[in-house]
């Protein structure tokens, strides 16, 4: 069915020093906090028109970590970071395909 892809719906998300996403097709991807914060897609981190990154990575603390997070509908994750930044909406599509991650062999 169109739009109903198991690979872009998470079954479980958890944090243990890194962010883990277990997708409905069984794949398990792992994200470093700093990398995710650096990849924030929001309008104050990325220029809306040019798509150029505005965020200065040197301003991200080394110990950056999520404080809180919430699902957005069927398609994204919203994260409140320890630097008080919370406007980034991380779509599942991009978490799966674009944002830097490693894939766990065991799932």
């Amino acid at each position: 069915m169109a739009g109903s892809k198991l690979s872009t719906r998470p079954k479980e998300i958890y944090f243990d020093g890194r962010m883990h996403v277990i997708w409905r097709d069984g794949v398990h991807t792992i994200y470093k906090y700093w990398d995710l914060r650096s990849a924030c897609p929001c309008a104050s981190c990325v220029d809306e028109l040019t798509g150029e990154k505005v965020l200065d990575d040197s301003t991200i603390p080394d110990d950056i970590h999520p404080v809180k997070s919430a699902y957005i509908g069927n398609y994204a994750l919203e994260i409140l970071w320890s630097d008080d930044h919370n406007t980034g909406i991380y779509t599942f599509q991009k978490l799966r395909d674009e944002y830097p991650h490693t894939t766990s062999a065991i799932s």
Partner: protein
Amino acid sequence: MNSIEQQIKETLQQIPFSDNGGNVLDAEVVYSLELSGETANVMLVIGKEYQSIREETIKKIEAGLKTVDGISDVTMKVVGSKSEIETQQKQNAGANPAPPEQANYLQEYENVILIASGKGGVGKSTVAINLALALKEMGKKVSVLDADVYGPSIPIMLGKRNEPLQVVGQQVKPLNQYGIDFMSVGNMVKEDQALIWRGPMAHQVIQQMLRDAAWPGGDYMIIDLPPGTGDVQLSVAQMTEATGAVIVCTPQDVALLDARKAIAMFNKVNIPVLGMIENMSAFVCPKCGAETPIFAKGGTERESTDQNIAYIGGIPIEMDIRLGSDNGDPIVHASPNSASAKVFKEIAVRLDQIVTEAN
């Protein structure tokens, strides 16, 4: 026999700390004590200045607690200062936040179905309400949310014009008609009042109808979206975990073009498109029975095949369907045995099958 809390307290009060006669409780040496079964997990704070009596105090506390009925084992953790514990707790909380919250509404419904179209005037609300009634006929518990905040038409179709919504406690109570619980902006503002709202305002109203309403829950929540691909669609997509969307379309090209945009939008927000329904498929003359394809019949079916989406069915142009909507008594309820009502029921059965498969 004293309670275990009392016993612990009395025991700890007998253990001296510092030379002015204080005990470990008064001196706040015992930071926390948790019981898990017969094990007491104790956290102690002993500053460097008390290094000389540190070991002795720890031993006394351990031995003392073991004399308490109900405690057989003691685990100890000793730190140098209170702030050490607090920083540690903060770090633990920060490093491992809880899993993401389910910030979505309407969890009390088995299925949340969005009725959408790209173009306006294709009969979205008529389809939504008749589909809801047909699902109810099948024995399902159904609610309807009119999310068309700019042009709410569900109150008219259900014969509940100008009936205000009641607020019970902190929550708005949905209205009920023909066994369907429903809510609409049409029941919140006067009919001749224009709603000139920017996005954030529409977002807020949608949130109110989702969050602050006493929805009874059930098998199906049918959400009648406004036409297009705008703020309201995005709000609903963000605030609910929709089972899927149904695209209503007339067979003509302008409508199909807009329907394509709606499908693209749902793909973007990861909402499965469950199928397409062709409305105003063809006009069947009530006098001679001849079929006239006013908007070119079959366009929706072709489009759905192209897009690899299920085609759920086609609804003819019939005077009675329009009359039912305008009179506040939709055709599935008004004349359940009519040909058009049967078409809606077939569509409802098909949709229910698709939803069952999708789940």
